[in-house]
Every structure is written in structure tokens, then in C-alpha cells.
């Protein structure tokens, strides 16, 4: 138990050490405005990664998050520019995200298709659907009242802290509660740990699978809403490749892709590492080609350091 706590602290300490090194190299790194900046940038990947954590804990994977983000963002922008209320448009976008997840979940649990393929299909189909829906062009919001209000979700502040940061914290608090304190949380771990045993214990395995993909879809939709609000515009190619970042955050956070073991706290740390890394490399003015090399190297060091603990 104490060892576990130490483990958790260890990653946090690693994160802090890393931040300190960067702040020595670039004095602008540890300014309040940059920290808020990093947090806001991290919020998108974090929100997606929170949902991805549920999926990966069950031993699944969700490749469709990027497309879901784009599709739901576009739907939301469309409805708002068509005059719908912000609340309703956002609710519809989140509901569609959950439905998309349910769709993948049904293919996986009822159709017995491997999650990788099922969500690859969803990813491809939904990207196509987004392009058809937007005709390949961004849906840009006007400057009417609703659009202004909506844009606050991505660009606004409350008490000096960006709204997306609140959303991210809220998502993680709920995810933490669900995963550690509720039955469904236990079942997610159980399913990932041993599907056969879970079935034999009388768990409704299908229902758990449907739930995690729905959660992932809904959070991807939320990320889509935030990005769209931030840009006041929904891009049909938004979110391409985001699945890899989200999965990387989850796995960097110590969750095993085999399922059954890991934590949502790890995911935040993973997402922060990735976020800080991009920000730091930019602040340090590393040229974009070398950024890729540096990013890979740091991620490797992070996982290797983490592994030593086990």
C-alpha cells in the first residue's frame, strides 16, 4: 500500500523534476500564463485519454476518438450556427458521441469483433461521414450571441483559469470516483483482468463493454466541443491521429494495454508529460524535425524509468 503510494509520488516527482529542468532551460516555462497555457492545451488530450482509460482497462482500445471528436464538433457547430441554444447543441453532440461509442461497443460485444477492428471501422466511417456532412470545409461560427457564449467553453476564463481546465478536472474527478468507488469501476478492472472469470462471477460483460465505449465516445465528443469552441470553428480533419496521443497518455500513466491494471491518476500524469513536452520543445525552440526525435526519446525514458519500479 505504501509502496503504491510511493509509486504514484514517484511519477509525480519525475514530472516535477522534468518541469524543473525545462524551467531552467527556459525561464518562461514556469510562468503562470504558460502553466495555464499548458493545462489548456493538455485538456483536450486529457479528456479523451480519461475515456480511453476506461476502454483500455477492460483490455479494449478505441481508435475512433479522433473521428468522433471531429464529427461531434461539426454537429455542434452546425446546430449552433443554425440558431439552436448552446446547451441543447452541446447535449446533442455529447449524446451522439455516446451513441457512436455504443455502436462500437455493440459490434465488439454482440458481434464479437476485436476492438481494434471495430473502432477502426468506426473511425473510418465517421471520418467519411464528417467530410460528407461538412463537405470538407470548416463550419465557422458567426459573432451572434449564441456563438459568443459557446466560444467561452473553449476560450473563456473563470477566476483567471481557462474553462477547459475546469472541464478536465471535473472529468478526472468523476472518472476517479467511478473507477475507484463504484461497482462499474470494479467491473471494468475485473473484465480487463479476466473476462472468463468475470462472466463466471455473473457480471454482465456486454453491458460493461457498451458502457466503456459509450464513455469514451462521449468524452471524445466533449473534447470536440471544446476544440470547436476554442477555434469558433469545426474542422473536418480535426482530431486525426489523436487516438495515438490518448493511448500514449494512458500507457505512459502505467495502464497496461492488456487491461485489468492501471489508474486514472496515471493517465493525468501521462497526458501532462506529453503536453509539457510539446510545450517545452517549442519554448526551447527545437526545430520541428528534431522535436519528433526528442519527443520519442523522452517518452522512452519516462516508460523505462517507470518500469524500473515494478
Amino acid at each position, binding site marked *: 500500500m505504501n509502496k503504491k503510494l510511493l509509486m504514484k509520488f514517484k511519477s509525480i516527482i519525475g514530472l516535477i523534476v522534468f518541469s524543473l529542468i525545462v524551467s531552467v532551460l527556459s525561464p518562461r516555462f514556469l510562468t503562470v500564463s504558460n502553466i495555464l497555457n499548458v493545462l489548456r492545451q493538455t485538456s483536450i488530450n486529457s479528456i479523451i485519454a480519461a475515456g480511453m482509460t476506461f476502454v483500455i482497462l477492460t483490455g479494449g482500445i478505441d481508435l475512433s476518438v479522433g473521428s468522433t471528436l471531429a464529427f461531434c464538433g461539426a454537429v455542434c457547430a452546425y446546430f449552433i450556427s443554425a440558431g439552436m441554444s448552446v446547451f441543447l447543441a452541446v447535449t446533442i453532440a455529447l449524446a451522439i458521441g455516446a451513441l457512436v461509442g455504443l455502436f462500437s461497443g455493440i459490434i465488439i460485444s454482440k458481434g464479437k469483433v476485436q476492438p481494434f477492428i471495430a473502432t477502426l471501422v468506426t473511425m473510418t466511417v465517421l471520418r467519411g461521414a464528417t467530410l460528407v456532412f461538412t463537405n470538407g470545409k470548416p463550419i465557422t461560427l458567426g459573432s451572434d450571441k449564441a456563438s459568443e457564449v459557446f466560444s467561452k467553453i473553449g476560450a473563456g476564463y473563470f477566476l483567471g483559469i481557462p474553462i477547459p481546465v475546469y472541464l478536465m478536472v471535473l472529468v478526472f474527478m468523476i472518472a476517479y470516483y467511478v473507477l475507484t468507488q*463504484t461497482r462499474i469501476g470494479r467491473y471494468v478492472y*475485473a473484465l480487463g*483482468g*479476466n473476462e472468463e472469470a*468475470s462472466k463466471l462471477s*455473473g457480471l454482465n460483460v456486454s453491458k460493461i463493454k457498451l458502457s466503456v465505449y459509450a464513455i469514451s465516445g462521449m468524452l471524445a465528443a466533449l473534447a470536440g466541443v471544446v476544440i470547436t469552441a476554442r477555434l469558433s470553428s469545426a474542422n473536418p480533419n480535426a482530431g486525426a491521429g489523436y487516438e495515438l496521443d490518448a493511448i500514449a497518455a494512458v500507457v505512459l500513466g502505467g495502464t497496461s494495454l492488456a487491461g485489468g491494471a492501471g489508474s486514472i491518476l496515471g493517465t493525468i500524469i501521462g497526458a501532462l508529460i506529453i503536453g509539457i513536452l510539446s510545450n517545452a520543445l517549442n519554448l526551447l525552440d527545437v526545430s520541428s524535425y528534431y522535436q519528433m526525435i526528442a519527443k520519442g526519446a523522452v517518452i522512452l525514458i519516462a516508460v523505462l524509468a517507470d518500469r524500473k519500479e515494478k
Partner: protein
Amino acid sequence: MKQPIFEMKAITKEFPGVKALDHVDFKIHKGRVMALLGENGAGKSTLMKILSGVYQKDDGEIIYEGKKVDIKGPKDAQEEGISIIHQELNLIPHLTIGENIFLGREPVNAFKKIDWTKLYKDSEVLLKKLKVDKSPKELVASLSIGEQQMVEIAKALSLNAKIIIMDEPTDALTKKETESLFHVIHELRAQQKSIVYISHRLEEIFQVCDDVTVLRDGKFIGEAQVKTLNEDQLIEMMVGRKLTEQFPSVVVEKGDVALEVKNLSNEYVKDISFLLRKGEILGISGLMGSGRTELAKSIYGALRKDSGKVYIDGKEVNIKSTQNALKEGIAYVSEDRKGQGLILGLSVKENMSISSLKDFESPIFKINRTKEKKAVKNYIAQMAIKTPTERQKIKNLSGGNQQKVSIAKGLMTNPKILILDEPTRGVDVGAKKEIYDLINKFKQTGMSIIMISSEMPEILGMSDRILVMHQGRITGELDRTDASQEKIMKCAVGIKEVSYKDE
């Protein structure tokens, strides 16, 4: 006998190529313990899986308190008041003991939050009852097989069911835990619960069971009260013929030292030294978690050694991996056939030859399949492994037959030293005898055998010499001639200095 509370009538179940159950009748009586016996592959587990909703019957009916019932899944069975300890472990490694016990039935408060205090308190009570000295907050992944089995038992008890099915619950348990289990069974019977008890350890049947039902080749053979039968009669019902002496001890002249271990220590075992001679069977006994498996794995190169030396035929060897061990002529057969012994998705043949594939390799790196098949078929015949063909997936074999394949895999490497960890776990009486005969045969050729076993009669009957372990150390070394259950138990609890109370 009174009217049974539960009755299965003419149950039939077929798997591709195997008629597992053929019009089997089975009764369960209130407040009594029903033994379900039969050879490996007789259909015992299949019958119980139908009762607990894991499999669906092809034909027949199930009657519960006079009413026909339909059990569609594990949840249905739970609701009918049936709980089962499966033959194979079914736990979630990264959840705690307590979480595993109450999986699917966690107590929650008004806000849907799990009531951890209650969950762990209730788990604690169950563990105490079974005399398991582990915190319910410990992860299942860190438990030994035996300990995991106790968690399975606790889980089955926690359901507070009317019928509790135990499919070979003691096959990974030592005497001590077995006794706690029997104590609990007596209590349950007193509470008018019904129990189905499956085991290949016949002496246990006489200790705890009231009635017995025997299956053979998927067919119902008979039902009787245990007190009307003796062991020989039981065996005859099961295998259809009489068996000669169960432990045919073979005396082999003392050979040279084949293996010497000197002061071996690591995380799990401390300061282990012993000798093993050619043509000798060295039994290792001890309580659950005493470190026997770890010792074997340390010698075999699967666990790291911190200090100590190992000599084979007088020469020091440095075994750092399992490949090294095999090269030096050591083979190890795991106690955990499902988790560590077999590759369930592969066939009988592929499993059996995996450690010795090199021997079947022709130039151009091609596996000589004819040769491989011949060798495999030879073992299938020798060990009477029940399988339609050598191409059958190993996961479709009954537990005992899987175990035989596991042993055959070790034997196929032609080892000088064979380490058997619980070699007859889940093996039926007939097959046990076949395995013992085989072990003796290899012993006669000069092979040295280390046999870790939790089954007292087996240890006493087969070993030339017995080591007893306690908390990672050797606490006793007994010769065949002066070993007894009492002496072993005394060393096993590690208290030579404290006097052992005999009751």
C-alpha cells in the same frame, strides 16, 4: 433416502467429437455431501458446469424442489442458490482478495459508493473461518495457487448458497488447509446446506462425503451411500476394474550424486542445500506458501538466484535461464498447468513437443512432423491420454489429461533431472497409477526426480527421501523408512524445538 432437493435427469451434452454426458442422472440431498467421482474426462466438471449455468445442456431436465428450472447463465444459478468452486482458478489477479470474493455483489451505500469497510470486514470473517492468514486487501496476483484456491472457496461461501459445488477444491491444498475446508463443510452440512464434492483423493471421500455418484465415460454408473463402500469398490466403480497396489515402490540401488545444491538463497528461499542421487525420488513437502515452487523455479533458472551453487554430476553449473536448465538436463513440470504449464490455444502435439522441438528438426530447419507425431502418439498411448487425436486443442481436454500432457512435455526432453511440481494435481486414481509407474520406470533408467507434492500419501508412497520446507527454509530431511505424516507436519510448521501436540 429422502426426496432430493435437486435432481438432474437424463442430461446429455456433446462437444465436437466428444459425447461428454450421455443421459446422466444426478441427485443432491438436503444437508448431505454428495461425492461426484469418475476418471479424468468422465464428465464431472461438465455436469457441474451445466448445473451452474456455464454450459447449456443438449437434452435432459433439471428439477429443483419439485419444479423444472432453466438455468441460462451463471447469474441464474446464483439466483437459484447454487454456488460453485470451479476446477480451474477464476480470479482477477489485479483485484484484492476482498474484491474478488464479492465480485458482482459488492455492498454499496445510497450513493452507489462501494462500502469498503463492510466488504473487507465480511471478507476478513470468511478468511478467518477458513484459517487463511492473509489480509483481504492483498492483491490476488501475489498469492500462491493454494492461497488462491482458498479465496475461491471463500467466494463460494460468501454467496450463502443452498447448494455449494466444489470441483476438486483440495487439489492445490496441503493437509492443513484441507482440514480447515473439511471443518467448514461439516458446519455447512449442519446448517442443512447441500454440497457436491469432486475429488480424486479418495481418502477425502470417506472423510467428508455421505453419498457418492460415479460417472464413467459420460455415463451414469451408480449412486450409493459412502458408508456401504470401501476404497477398492469405489475404484472398481470408477475404472471398471480392480487396481493393484497404488504406490508400487521400486528400489533402485543408490547411484552417484546427480545434483547438488549448496546454500542457495534468493528473495523466496533461504540457504537451501541438498543432494539428489541418480535413480532417486526426492519428495519435497511443506505447507502452502512454504516456497517449494520457488525453490524448484530457482534451480530451473526461472527465478534469479542471489547466492549459492549448483552442481550437476559434480560439475558446477551456472543456470541463468530455462534454456540453460534444459541444456543441463533439468526439466520442470509446473503446478499451474493452465497459467504456466500449457499453451491452451495450441494442440496436444504442439504442447507436448515444445520443449524438445530441436530433436525433431531436420536440416533446412524443417520440423520432421512424422517423427514428432510418432513421439507424441507414443506418449499418448503410454500415459493413456484421453484425446480424440493429437491435433485436439489442449484446452478441450479434461484437467487430468492436460496434466498428463504437461508431464509428457517434460519427459520428452529426456532429462537427467525431472522436477515435478504437484504432478498428479487433478489426476484420477487410474491415471495416477500410470504416472507413478512411469515415474518409477524413469527412475529405473537412472533419472533423478524431485517431486513436490501436497498430497501426503503420494509423498510418503513414492519418495526415497523427503525434504520438508517451512518459510523458504529446509526444516527437515527424512528417509523413506522413518517418515510419517506426523513427522512431516512437525517439520512443516517449522517447530522442531516446540513440542508437537498429538491429539
